[in-house]
């Protein structure tokens, strides 16, 4: 029988290790797999390499519960290979604690302190963050948790069913899907508003599911009975030494990776530095003789080789070595990419593919970018930027150009800087251009900065009799890390300016005016002032991204700042006498804001005053938007304005939202909620990308209509709205009525289709 004859020693022992481990043993129950260790010496350790460890449901039944923790400890301590999947299908929080400790420290514990359950949150927190490869966490029926902190560098999926008082996410840069289900009796404790503020820290969030238990009793029961507590993917990093073949090749590749790890790359590839990065990588890789892996000039060994003499096919050790080296190189390359570039690499399995993809993306991008930077450099104007900011912009532009291969000479940089200056800087321009050779960018910067200071103080002195109270926004602070409290800035700075202005001594922030140019107190643009900002624009300002909107500057405001309330409606002729501090009374803060930059609720100008304060401290939107969130699925109580405000906050912070699924569960709608929803009815950028809305109704017609009205009015690209009535509450007649009414509602997207589905079929 061919070349398998030698296997006939016995029927199974000599199958290749990976066949036995990955295929046969992995299909056995854990108990059967462990028992194979007694078959013979050969089998002693085979089971310890199985890739999946499942403590199944029957496991808990068959053995005494009190032993189970010890058993789990035993199994894990014997296991040697990588674990791709770890499942506990029992209500085993205690076991989990030990497991966590064990994975962290590499040891296992037989005894922990008495109050073990209270240990859990702290341990769990550290535990996840230690598992650097952990991708998916699924916690089920966790009733012991007060607060839960989730953290994991590779974490992509997080599911939680159970009760918690608070949940926090941090350092989870790639978390893409969050699902939270809480049982109904605790529903009102865990309000949407208490949870969602933490989601703002998740830059990659794509799907968000928030539900309260009883609404979906069936689904929940199905899931929770069969589901498991914890699934860990790839928790162990250590590789099994005995799985490798071709030892000499393997050895050499391991040497290579050690060397690679020492080849530091000082830059991470981002959008602007491809050429620099490429140079460094190529140098390092070529130095190690591995460049053929990148360029694809290397011939990939096939998995099988044929002996030319005997015509026999067998495994190719060279392939395995190649594969290992390739993967090592990949991991090294990936570590030198910035996050935005990593996205491009998803799904690519070989170095060559990665290299080609990068080349294709950045070669074109580089030339386009170069042009963009050149144009930017030539057209850059100082405008009302501070000198420091303006010079920095020039510098960054030049640096980017240099990174793309176009070095701008030092003096050219100076010239570019001079070109964008206004008339008031003519003396400096003359000075510098009269003797161009001796000026470096640094010297010129120093001169310009000191000249700016002179101009500022001169302006103040000349206007001293008529103190400039106007808050000319000069935005000297960095614009990142802003919070939603747009008006806070103005409040804080406003008071500062006022004081400074009255004393007439402060030349910094406030009263700087060039050529009598007025600058808007809200947005910092110079061609209008706050009094002629249209209501729509000013409400848009509240929604704009922090990047492009200078209005959204917030510095943490000490609560002691005075809160004299001045509406944003001062007319132009009062400018010189009335401080234009735009202020809102400080709304009550949610108690746990310590991890977030300070957020205060801000109601846009256009809103009636009385809706303020009722939103219970929910911010208008989050400081950082969820730039990748596309699916939101949540349940909402329409009778609570806090819930609705939280919902709106979430929506406003999700510019890419495409699919929205809402379970509405309330019987009547609060007047304030109606008001709040109606106030939103402008087709704006909030729901711009929304294609599909599903509304599941546990409510009567009025709240539903209000909500549908809001969505229809706002979503400009809506394709379909499906209303689902699972209970069903509506008779056929009222359904028809409802359909008619909904169809009559004004809508931003003319092509939107409204469909109503009921679980009862009417004849």
């Amino acid at each position: 029988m061919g070349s398998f004859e030698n296997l006939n020693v016995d029927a199974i022992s000599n199958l290749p290790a990976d066949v036995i481990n990955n295929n046969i043993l992995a299909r056995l129950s854990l108990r059967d797999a462990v028992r194979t260790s007694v078959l013979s010496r050969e089998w002693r350790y085979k089971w310890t390499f199985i890739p999946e460890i499942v403590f199944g449901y029957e496991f808990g039944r068959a053995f005494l519960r009190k032993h189970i923790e010890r058993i789990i400890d035993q199994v894990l301590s014997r296991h040697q290979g990588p674990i791709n999947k770890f499942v506990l299908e029992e209500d085993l929080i205690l076991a989990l604690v030990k497991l966590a400790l064990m994975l962290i420290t590499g040891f296992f514990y037989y005894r922990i302190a008495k109050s073990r359950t209270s240990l859990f949150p702290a341990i769990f927190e550290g535990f996840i963050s230690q598992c650097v490869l952990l991708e998916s966490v699924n916690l089920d029926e966790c009733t012991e948790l007060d607060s839960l902190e989730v953290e994991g560098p590779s974490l992509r999926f997080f599911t939680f069913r159970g009760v918690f008082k608070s949940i926090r996410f941090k350092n989870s840069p790639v978390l893409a899907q969050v699902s939270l289900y809480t049982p109904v009796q605790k529903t009102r404790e865990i309000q949407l508003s208490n949870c969602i503020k933490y989601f703002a820290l998740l830059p990659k969030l794509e799907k968000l599911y928030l539900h309260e238990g009883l609404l979906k009793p069936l689904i929940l029961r199905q899931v929770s009975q069969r589901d498991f507590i914890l699934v860990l993917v790839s928790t162990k990093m250590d590789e099994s030494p005995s799985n490798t073949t071709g030892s000499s090749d393997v050895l050499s590749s391991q040497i290579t990776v050690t060397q690679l790890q020492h080849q530091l790359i000082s830059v991470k590839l981002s959008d602007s530095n491809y050429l620099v990065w490429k140079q460094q990588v190529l140098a390092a890789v070529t130095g190690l003789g591995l460049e053929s892996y990148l360029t694809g000039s290397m011939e990939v060994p096939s998995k099988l080789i044929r002996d030319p003499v005997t015509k026999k096919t067998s495994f190719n050790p060279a392939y395995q070595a190649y594969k290992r080296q390739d993967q090592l190189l990949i991991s090294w390359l990936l570590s030198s990419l910035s996050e935005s570039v990593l996205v491009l690499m998803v799904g690519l399995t070989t170095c060559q593919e990665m290299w080609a993809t990068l080349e294709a993306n950045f070669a074109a991008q580089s030339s386009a970018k170069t042009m963009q930077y050149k144009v930017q450099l030539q057209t850059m104007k100082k405008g009302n930027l501070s000198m420091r900011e303006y010079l920095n912009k020039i510098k960054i532009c030049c640096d980017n150009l240099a990174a793309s291969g176009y070095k701008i000479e030092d003096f050219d940089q100076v010239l570019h800087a001079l070109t964008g200056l206004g008339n008031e800087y003519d003396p400096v321009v003359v000075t510098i251009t009269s003797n161009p050779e001796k000026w470096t960018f640094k010297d010129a910067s120093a001169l310009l900065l000191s000249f700016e200071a002179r101009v500022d103080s001169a302006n103040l002195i000349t206007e001293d009799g008529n103190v400039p109270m106007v808050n000319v926004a000069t935005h000297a602070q960095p614009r990142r890390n802003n919070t939603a409290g747009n008006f806070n800035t103005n409040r804080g700075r406003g008071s500062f300016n006022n004081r400074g202005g009255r004393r007439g001594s402060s030349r910094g922030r406030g009263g700087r005016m060039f050529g009598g140019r007025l600058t808007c107190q809200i947005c910092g643009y110079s061609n209008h002032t706050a009094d002629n900002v249209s209501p729509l624009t000013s409400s848009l300002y509240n929604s704009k991204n922090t990047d492009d909107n200078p209005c959204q500057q917030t510095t943490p405001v000490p609560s002691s700042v005075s809160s004299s309330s001045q509406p944003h409606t001062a007319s132009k002729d009062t400018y010189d006498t009335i401080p234009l501090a735009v202020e809102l009374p400080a709304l009550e803060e949610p108690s746990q804001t310590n991890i977030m930059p300070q957020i205060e609720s801000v109601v846009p100008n256009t809103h009636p005053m009385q809706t303020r304060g009722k939103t219970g401290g929910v911010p208008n939107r989050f400081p950082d938007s969820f730039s990748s969130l596309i699916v939101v699925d949540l349940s909402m109580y329409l009778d609570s304005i806090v819930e609705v405000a939280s919902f709106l906050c979430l929506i406003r912070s999700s510019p890419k939202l495409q699919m929205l699924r809402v379970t509405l569960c309330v019987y009547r709608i609060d007047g304030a909620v109606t008001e709040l929803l109606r106030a939103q009815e402008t087709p704006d950028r909030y729901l711009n990308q929304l294609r599909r809305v599903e509304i599941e109704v546990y409510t009567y017609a009025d709240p539903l209509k209000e909500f549908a009205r809001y969505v229809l009015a706002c979503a400009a690209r809506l394709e379909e709205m499906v209303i689902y009535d699972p209970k069903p509450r509506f008779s056929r007649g009222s359904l028809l009525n409802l359909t008619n009414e909904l169809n009559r509602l004004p809508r931003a997207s003319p092509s939107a289709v409204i469909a109503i589905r009921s679980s009862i079929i009417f004849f």
Partner: protein
Amino acid sequence: MVTTDEKGPLTAKKKSVIIRSCDGDEFLVSESAAVLSTSLKKILEEKEDRLIHLSDIDNKTLAMVIAYLSTHADDGLSDDLKRSFDQEFVSGKEFDVLKYLVLATDTLQVTCLCYTVAKKMADIMKNKLVEWVRREFDIQNDYTPEAEAEIRRLDAWAWDDRQLEDD
């Protein structure tokens, strides 16, 4: 078992491949079926002629694998039919046959068949006494009685033999 001398000319559409087993018999396989095997696919991409010699797969095993590949390459069949074919395919086969199948599928890298067969093999071993497995697969017990007892003691939880079968 189709034997043929026709070697598809290079200019013609690449429709079928000839696979020769270690016993020397040749099988005509449509290319769409052959590429379901990752290894064959790779060979086909590199090699010019349409004859592939598999030196460690015998007639019987190869015929089974090819039957499987052809069924799964058939677009006319629904997924349900294919699934029931899989069930049928492994049922009633001797452990020996399965062993060669799993080796062949591993060599040829036919993942889904490898999975199905390994599952079947695992099912055979499921809930069986160690003694039964040793007997059935001719595994020589080379432990001393003391060593074996020691191992059993280590993982005592796995040795609750009450529900295990010995037939």
